Structures are given as C-alpha cells and as structure tokens.
C-alpha cells in the first residue's frame, strides 16, 4: 500500500541493553543504578527508558551529567482504566550528541506523585505546573505548585480521560 520506512525496533529491556549497550545514557544509568531502569524501548528512532518513580530526579541528574544537558519537554498520558494509570514523559535533548531521549515514569491512580526535577532543570517548573494543572499529578518539592492554565478555583483535571471533552462534568 505505502512504503514503510524501516527502522529497527527493539522492545523490552533485555533487547535494548543488548542492542544499544554503547548508548551514553544507558551506560550512565547502568553505571549509576541498574535496578532503577525498569524497562526500555527503541521505536521509530526514539529511545525510551522507563525509570522507577522514586529515582526520577537522580536519573535526570545522571543523564544530565552524561551530556543530555537540555530539558525540552515534560507531559503526561492518562492510560485510564489501565494500571499503572499515568505515564510521565520527559524529553531530554543533548546538544553535544544532537540526540533526544525519553525518560518515562509510570504512576498509579492512587495519589499520583513524583519528585520534582526543578533542582536539576529549573525549566521544568512550568511543565510540572502544567501536568499538575491538567492531570492532577503532584510534584514533591516543587517551588510553586499552582494551577497554571486553568483558573485557580477550577475543579477537576481536564486532560484526564474520565473528564468529558464537552458538556457538564
């Protein structure tokens, strides 16, 4: 029907660790704490590393010192009703390697919260506020965790999948 661009896909931690052992971010995380790396995926030219939620700040610090110096984006995905429900995607860019990685954190529905990475990148401030505002995920030790896009007295978290697109809540 149409031509598929062929990119090798590596699914699962074992496959990625075998196929991409020389990748700087993987090497750094393995050298720092192998058990923090829960899962990995290399799909459509993008490397995704799933990090244990309690280790995300340290993991960010680890990859920052290996050359992933620029925090580009943070957002969440609501996989309702699956468990764990929330996925946080941190997109980190490396100016020296000219490459991007994605750190992923999976969070449960009950009290979704994770450490703020603002001590590593102050740029994450607005992004964490946005995720808090639209998904209701809390970030520990965030300097100013308030709603950012919605009004302060808004009820509910609009980007959750159980929040309707239109009509009354």
């Amino acid at each position, binding site marked *: *029907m*149409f*031509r*598929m*661009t062929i990119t090798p896909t590596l699914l699962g931690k074992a496959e990625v660790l075998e196929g991409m052992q020389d990748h700087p971010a993987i090497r750094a995380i393995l050298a720092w704490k192998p058990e923090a790396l829960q899962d990995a995926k290399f*799909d*459509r*030219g*993008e490397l*995704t590393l799933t990090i244990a939620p309690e280790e995300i700040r340290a993991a960010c610090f680890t990859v920052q010192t290996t050359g992933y*110096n*620029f*925090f*580009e*984006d943070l*957002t969440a*995905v*609501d996989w309702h009703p699956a468990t764990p429900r929330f996925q946080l*995607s941190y*997109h980190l*860019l490396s*100016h020296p390697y*000219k*490459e*991007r990685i*994605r750190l992923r954190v999976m969070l449960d529905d009950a009290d979704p919260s994770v450490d703020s990475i603002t001590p590593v*990148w*102050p*740029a*994450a*401030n*607005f*992004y964490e506020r946005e995720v808090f505002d*639209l998904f209701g995920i809390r970030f520990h030790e965030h300097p100013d965790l308030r*709603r*950012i*896009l*919605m*009004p*302060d*007295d808004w*009820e509910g978290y*609009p*980007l959750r999948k159980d*929040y309707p*697109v*239109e009509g*009354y*809540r």
Partner: protein
Amino acid sequence: MSDRPGTPVLELPVAQSPGDHMILNMGPQHPSTHGVLRLVLEIDGEIIQSVRPEIGYLHTGIEKTCEAKFYQQVVPLTDRIDYLSPMANNLCYCLAVERLLGLEIPPRAQWMRVLLVELTRLNSHLVWLGTHAMDIGALTVFLYTFREREEILRLFEDISGQRMMGSYIRIGGLPMEPPLDFFDRTRTFIHSFPEKIDEYSNLLTGNPIFINRLKGVGYLSAKDAIALGVTGPPLRASSVDFDLRRDMPYSSYEKFQFNVPTSTVGDTWARYEVRLAEMRESVKIVQQALDGMPAGALRAHAPKIILPDREKMKTEMEALIHHFKIVTEGFPVPAGEVYQGIESPRGQMGYYVVSDGTAKPYRVHMRNPTFASLQAIETMSKGRLIADLVAVIGSIDIVLGEIDR
C-alpha cells in the same frame, strides 16, 4: 459548570508591601505584553525585584480537543495555536504523524514545506520586528515590516485560500500544486527582500534611542538559558550554537546551505541582531528551495490516508470509497509514541503524539518555545527598570496563543 462557587476574582494590584516593595499588576490587557500576558511585579521604586508571569487567559484546551478529532482534523487546530507561524505548527504535527505512520514524503513536498516554513519565519520575524520596535517607541518600522508581511500573506492566500490559517501542510504532503505564478512571485519578493532588511536596519541599528533601550538590557547567560529551557534566537544570542534545522535536520533541511547566526553578548540587542541575521539566512534558504525545487508528486502514495483528487473521485470507484472512508472514519495509525521537534521562528517546537492504534490521537502535546522562554523573564529583568521589562518581553517574541494553547 453552574455549580461553581462564585466567579473567579482577579487578584488586583493591592498595595500590600512585603518590606518596602510594592506589588504591581501588569496586564493582562497591556499594549506591550503582546496579548493577554499578566505579570505580577514586585518593585522597589522603579526597580524590579521579581516577576511572576500569570498565564492561561487564552487557554482553549486544544490538547483535549485533539483527542476527540481524527488525525487529519487536528491539522486546522494546529494553525490556531500560533497566528504568526501556522505553517510551522502544521509541519511539526504532520511530521510526527507521518513518522507514526511510516509514510515517506516525496522530495518536492519536502522542499515546498521548507520554502513555506521559511516564508513563515520571515512573516513571524517581520511582525516581531515591527512590534518590538513599536514597544520601544520607534513607530515607523511597524509600517514598513507590515508592508512586506502583506506580500507574504498574499502568497499564502494564493496557495491555500487563507492568509493566515492555511492548513496547507497536510499529513502525507501538500494538498495541491500551488498556482502557476506562485514561484515567480516568490522569487520577485525574495529578490527584493534583502534591501528591505537593510531598510529596517537603517531605521533601527543606528538609532540612538533604540540602542540605549536595548544594549546591555535583559542579559541572559548561556548557562541560565539552558537551565531555563530557552530556545531559538534568544538561546543563540546567548552564544549557544544550536539550531535543529542544522543539527537534527528534518524535511530535507540537510540539503540546504545556510549559516546559524549567533552572538556572544546575550542581551536584548544581541537577540535583535540574531533575528535580523536569521531573516537574511531564511532568504538564502528560500532562494535555494526555488532554484532546486524537484519535480514530482506533492503527496505520498497512500490512498487510504490521503484524500484523492477531485477528478479521480468522479471517474474511479476506489477513489470515491477511500474518500468516503477517510472523511467518515479517518484512518488508523499504528500504536506508538513520537516526539517530533522542529525549529520554529520562536525556538524549538515539539509535538508529542501518542497513538493507541485508532483513528483519533490518544494524546497530542505541544511543546511551545515561548512557554519555556517565559520562565527566563525574571532572570533577564531583575534589578532593571520596568521600562526594560517591555524590551525584554519583546525580545523573547512571545505569542500568547501558543503559551496558553
């Protein structure tokens, strides 16, 4: 919504004084905040102690709306994020979806996209230059830049029927060939454009008031720029030499020769110089795109994804069926997640598209450059006068539509 406890009350600038400082409200309706930006300033006399941006006045929930639309219906929504660079938003979204689909785009479409995005960059920089100079008090430049912008909008109108929200870049390529005289008109426009840049430069670069208002104002170090997520011209004006078009090329940018202007100074003036130089580079890219435009199709061959020609629909049953299917059911996109970054006129734009295998995106997130750059406002204007803040806001070139989404 009717059961909400009362209407939200705007925090007005109450004269509460932490120490000797006064809290001053700037915006959301303020002529030099480029939209509905509200800044809560803590001032000591005229000197700024802290700046707290309060945003969200233009929040329309585009990300939520995207989840309820088919993939092709999201394209017009991306136009409306940023009224100065709709094509850049189109391109970024389409590239992301095309990567999810594994679609390969014909070279002619890729070059056309480069041409259009660079024209968009000129358009956006022209508005920036006009309004920035107007904020500073140089009213004349605005009229000159809008004269050229008008010509770019006319070109856009010719190809898409719309001056601003053209949705001309679609999933799988471009919808149709541009009119016959489009290339000639673009060539004429681009040919005379460097003189126009000289004209703006004559009005501003030697202007003592403009120099005094910009030089040494709003300094941002390279370290702070990276820490605060600043991208695009402000990042390059702070001596970080990084441009996605050159360093992580997309849409065949690797086939174009251009320089990435940088500056080591890091103040508002440096950002002015970098953007002015960027306009000259864009002219070069458009020129190369016109000279080397490959022949061939403007759309990938994917009948189940791209709408067929009107003519074919009248003669071929298959085309009619595909058209009906695409319009009523959309097309399924293989499950996965993709983050596509491009260099928009304002900096690094990124679209994060998550698919669950259905015809509607499971999640679309936009990383908009000025949303992050806004965080650097405090660093750039602390300890300076309120009037300098106006120059700083102008120099990061904010568009509230893309900040609030």
